[in-house]
C-alpha cells in the first residue's frame, strides 16, 4: 500500500510574524520557512507505518512555488521515498489545494492519505476534510492514534470533550493532531541521500484542474495589543485588586 502525505511550506513556528506597513498581507521576506508542524507529524506517521511493514512507499506532495521543493526534500530526508511538486504561482486556497490533491490521489491510488489538520499560516483547518468530500472517502480528523487493521483504519480523534474512535474503510484520509507522534530529526547522511531521491514537478494544467477564486483578502492588520497591567507584591494585594478593582470575584 502506498501512503500519500501532503506538506505545506509555511513560516517557521518560532519566527516572528510581521504585518506589512500597507496592511496588504504578512511580510514573509527574509523570514525562516519550514514544513508546517502538523504536516511534519503526518510525514513521521507515514514513515512509521512503512517501517512497521504496513506501507510499501511514502509519497510526499507539496503545492506552491519552486521554493516548496525545499520542504519536499526535508520530508525525503526524514524517510519519504519520492516527491511531487504541483507548481503554482502562489499558495492556493484550501478548496483548490484539495482539488489538486484529489487529482494526484486519482493518479497515484494510495491506500491512505495523511496530512496536517491545519497550516499555521492561514489556520484554516479545511483541506483534509475537503479532499475527503471530493474523493468520497472517509475522514479521520485530528488523529492522536492510528491503527491499520486489514482494509480498515482505526483512528482515535481529539475532540472537545475527550477522545472519539472511528473505524474507517480504506482508502481514507487522516489529519494529524499534535499528540499523534513526535517527529524525528533528519540525519546528515539521510539529508545527502534525499538529494538523489526522485522529485517530479507537475502543474494544475497537467493535472487538468481549474483553479477558482473563492475569496479576496481585503486587508491584514496587527491584532489589538493587550497592554501589560501591574505587578502586585503579595497574595493579599492580588485578592484585594481582583475583588475591588477588577470586580471579577
Amino acid at each position: 500500500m502506498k501512503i500519500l502525505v501532503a506538506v505545506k511550506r509555511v513560516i517557521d513556528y518560532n519566527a516572528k510574524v510581521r504585518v506589512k506597513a500597507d496592511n496588504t498581507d504578512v511580510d514573509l521576506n527574509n523570514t525562516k520557512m519550514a514544513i508546517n508542524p502538523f504536516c511534519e507529524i503526518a510525514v513521521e506517521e507515514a514513515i512509521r507505518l512503512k517501517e512497521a511493514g504496513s506501507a510499501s512507499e511514502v509519497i510526499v506532495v507539496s503545492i506552491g512555488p519552486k521554493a516548496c521543493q525545499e520542504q519536499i526534500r526535508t520530508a525525503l530526508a526524514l524517510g519519504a521515498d519520492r516527491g511531487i511538486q504541483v507548481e503554482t504561482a502562489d499558495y492556493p486556497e484550501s478548496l483548490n489545494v484539495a482539488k489538486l490533491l484529489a487529482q494526484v490521489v486519482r493518479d497515484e491510488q494510495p491506500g491512505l492519505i495523511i496530512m496536517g489538520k491545519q497550516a499555521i499560516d492561514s489556520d484554516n483547518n479545511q483541506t483534509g476534510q475537503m479532499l475527503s468530500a471530493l474523493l468520497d472517502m472517509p475522514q479521520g480528523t485530528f488523529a492522536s492514534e492510528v491503527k491499520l487493521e486489514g482494509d480498515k483504519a482505526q483512528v482515535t480523534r481529539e475532540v472537545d470533550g475527550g477522545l472519539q474512535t472511528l473505524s474507517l474503510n480504506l482508502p481514507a484520509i487522516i489529519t494529524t493532531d499534535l499528540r499523534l507522534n513526535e517527529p524525528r530529526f533528519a540525519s546528515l547522511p539521510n539529508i545527502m541521500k534525499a538529494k538523489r531521491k526522485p522529485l517530479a514537478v507537475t502543474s494544475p494544467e497537467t493535472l487538468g484542474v481549474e483553479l477558482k477564486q473563492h475569496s479576496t483578502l481585503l486587508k491584514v492588520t496587527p491584532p489589538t495589543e493587550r497592554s501589560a497591567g501591574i505587578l502586585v507584591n503579595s497574595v493579599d494585594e492580588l485578592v484585594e485588586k481582583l475583588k475591588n478593582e477588577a470586580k471579577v470575584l
Partner: protein
Amino acid sequence: MAILVIAEHDNSTLKGATLNTITAAFEIASKTPGSELHLLVAGRDCQSVAEEAAKVDGVSKVLVADDASYEHQVAENVANLISQLGKDYSHIVASATSNGKNILPRVAALLDVGQISDITAVESEDTFQRPIYAGNAIATIQSLDSIKVITVRGTAFPAASIGACVESNAEITNIDSPASSDLARFVSEEVAQSDRPELTAAKVIISGGRGMGSGENFSILEQLADKLGAAVGASRAAVDAGFVPNDMQVGQTGKIVAPELYIAVGISGAIQHLAGMKDSKVIVAINKDEDAPIFSVADYGLVADLFDVMPELQLKL
C-alpha cells in the same frame, strides 16, 4: 434567503457554543436584507434539543433530522445532509468547535464553495474578520461564493438569550434524511468526566504550565478551581510534558477561551498559549520568572514561586 445554523448538541441538550454562533449568524442576518435564521438539529432522539433550540431568540425555524446515522455526528453522514439542505441558503454557519471544524469543510467541498473559518467579526453579509498566524494578524476576507460557509469563534460573540420573548417560539419541522454511508463507523468515545465547567464555557479558568512540575501538582489548581467554580486548563508545554491530557490544552493548537478571569500559573506565555487566552477579560499571571512574556499581557502579575503562593491564594479567595 435564510441562514442555516448548525446546532451542536449531545442529543439531549444544546451546547453553549451554538448560542454564540447564533449571535454571529444574527449579525450576518441583520446585514443581509430579508433573511431569517433556521437552526438544524441533526441527531438521534434529539427532540428535547429541538424544543430548547426553538426558544432561542432570533431563531425562526428549527429543522430536525432524527436518524441513527447522526447519533455521533459522523461527518460523512451529517455533511451529506447539510450540503443537500444548504443549497437553498445564503449562509451555512457552525461553531468552530472540533465538531464544526470536522463537518463544515466537507459541506463546503460538496457544494463546491470555499469556507471562511473561525470568524471573529462580521463586516457585511460577505466580509468577515478572522485571526491568522495564531492570532498574530487579523485578516479581513470577502467571500465570492453564492453560498457562504462559515465557522464562528464562539468567544468573539456573546451568547444569544433563551426565552426572553416567550411568544416567539420557533416552528419545529421534521425533515427527511438522505441515505447514510458506511465509510466511517463510530467505535467508541472517551469523554473526560468532570464536575467542573467545560473550558470553553467557564467564567473562571485556572491554567497550569510546565512550572507545575508534575501532573500530581495540578491538584493544587483543582482545589482552587473547585472553590471558585472554575475550569482547569493547561499550556501546551504541560501537555507535551505529559502532566495532563490534551483536552485541557488552551492555545492556538488547543482551545480558544475568553473567560471573565484567567489565572495562569507557572506558564511562561509562549505566543501559541497567548493566542488561546488573550481575549480573557482579566488575566492574572503567577510565575517566578519576572521576565516571562505572560506578564506582558497580564492585568495583575505576581512574581513568586507558585508552590508558596497558591495555598495562600486558596485560603484567601
